[in-house]
């Protein structure tokens, strides 16, 4: 029998690269589930190949059945030859190298542990995926019709609330602060700010006097609109963050300007889409220059050196 490796005992596994590749494959599967099927297939292939090689490597010691040096103390695995009265022996006497065989206890041990581990993986992987992956899949929502352009008086902020998903009820209520900036090159211009404070996500309020509320139900969706007489900016009730009328931070802990909604005008109706993040805004109203970034969570910088802390955002 060949000694197993140059170091350690025969039962000690030698370090291998296969588990690393196996882990990379699993990671590819998870990424593929989110991003694309091609990556998923590649990940599955990598996992299968490296898994096979890993198992082959890990069981090589068992398959070659490394023999310990103290052979003499081992109980013999062969029975004494049975004497037959006539003819040849019923059980031929084993030859010198037939005496050492793959011990049955080792096989049972490896089978039990291997099968148990396999069942564990097969059960754990989907459960873990079910726990972790759904928050990252299908997080989008349809555009929301918040009213006709005429419903938004020029240069006044209108607090607009609606249910993103009426089936879920009040928990899906969202608020946008919408200001009609008039026409810019004959195209209506709007400033649509999210009410989510970019410090830690509390709802910012308009610093100003609310006027009469109007409501409209369209396609089963109730939209409330409350114009504001003279908005002086926005303030957050939780930790005192303050913003000006363009959403720029003026005081307090927020790390950037208020998020904004993408919007579209269709047949004279204002449709709100997804939100995006804004580092800061220069200029005002229709002439504002918006420094836009992909949506980031509250408290996360989108520009400057601190933005390096958040290199990857979850898919939306």
């Amino acid at each position, binding site marked *: 029998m060949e000694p197993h490796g140059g170091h350690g005992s025969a039962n000690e596994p030698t370090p291998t690269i296969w588990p690393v590749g196996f882990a990379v494959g699993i990671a590819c599967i998870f990424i593929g589930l989110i991003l694309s099927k091609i990556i998923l297939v590649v990940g599955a292939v990598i996992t299968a190949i490296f898994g096979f090689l890993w198992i082959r490597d890990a069981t090589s010691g068992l398959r070659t059945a490394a023999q310990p040096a103290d052979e003499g103390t081992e109980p013999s695995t062969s029975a004494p030859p049975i004497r037959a009265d006539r003819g040849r022996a019923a059980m031929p006497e084993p030859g010198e190298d037939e005496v050492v065989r793959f011990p049955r206890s080792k096989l049972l041990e490896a089978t039990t542990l291997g099968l148990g581990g396999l069942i564990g993986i097969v059960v754990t992987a989907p459960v873990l995926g079910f726990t*972790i992956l759904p928050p*990252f899949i299908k997080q989008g929502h349809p555009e929301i019709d918040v009213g006709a352009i005429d419903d938004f008086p020029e240069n006044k902020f209108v607090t607009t609330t609606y249910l993103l*998903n009426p089936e*879920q009820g009040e*928990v899906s209520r969202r608020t946008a602060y919408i200001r009609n900036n008039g026409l810019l090159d004959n195209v209506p211009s709007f400033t649509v700010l999210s009410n989510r404070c970019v410090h*830690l996500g509390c709802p910012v309020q308009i610093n100003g006097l609310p006027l009469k509320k109007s409501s409209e139900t369209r396609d089963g969706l109730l939209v409330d609109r409350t114009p504001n007489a003279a908005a002086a900016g926005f303030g957050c009730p939780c930790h005192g963050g303050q913003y000006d009328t363009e959403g720029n931070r003026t005081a307090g802990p927020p790390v950037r300007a208020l998020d904004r909604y993408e919007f579209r005008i269709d047949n004279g109706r204002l449709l709100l889409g997804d939100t995006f993040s804004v580092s800061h805004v220069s200029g005002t109203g229709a002439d504002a220059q918006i420094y836009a970034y992909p949506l980031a969570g*509250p*408290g996360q910088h989108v520009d400057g050196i601190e933005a390096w802390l*958040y290199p990857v955002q*979850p898919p939306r």
Partner: protein
Amino acid sequence: MAKKKPGRKDQVLALLLYPLDWLEERSGLVGGVRYFLFRKVPGDISWGHTLGSASLTAFIVQAVTGVILAMYYKPDPNSAYESIRHITDDLYAGWLVRGMHRWGASVFIILMFLHMGRVFLYGAYKFPRELNWIIGVLILVMGMMEGFFGYLLPWDQTAYWATVVGVNLQATGPFVGPFLGDILRGGAEIGPDTLARFYSLHMLVLPGAIAGLIGLHLYLVVRLGVVSPPWSPEGAGTERPGPPPPPRSGLVAPSPRGTRRR
């Protein structure tokens, strides 16, 4: 009859002991419990050593009241608040059980901190008890996670916005923070899944983990023994000269003051 007939008292005693004997013969559980309750501990331990048992009691109170509250609570955004109001206002003693759970949560955390302080000041975290310290810290962290996840369940404005802030706070962690936030919320925003997720973590995942760790914690306490106070003549690292202290029997006959070495 040469032998005296057993009296009525003995008969009743035998009747009472029979189930215990039956259990002991088949499981050894009675002996195990006796071993656990009447094992040897240093003679000069004090009330400070009861803080661990007190924490355990607080946890058991939380578990029992929590199980009962779960019979009436509905983890759905449209009915959670109403079900809590129903528990508090309508059901018999609902206010009491909910109050026990709500205030007991703070008691549990406070007792764990006091227990931790006692262990630290007595040096009871040192070899060979480091592992028990680590397990204890895990229990403390999970206890505080219980507080975080349980806080959302009343589903009122305080609960909702505190959870918004708490989750966003964790989402500002570098690199993995944004992903952690989404996993906690069960999505990009707080929704129905968030409440059910928090409920499951609060009443199934974390209590199970804490109970398992408490079992491990107690096993190590029994295996490694209880530490004497640092000023004790039996304390670690002190020589023990002279004759052993006079025998004493716990609460009934405490050792006389003069025999204690300082």
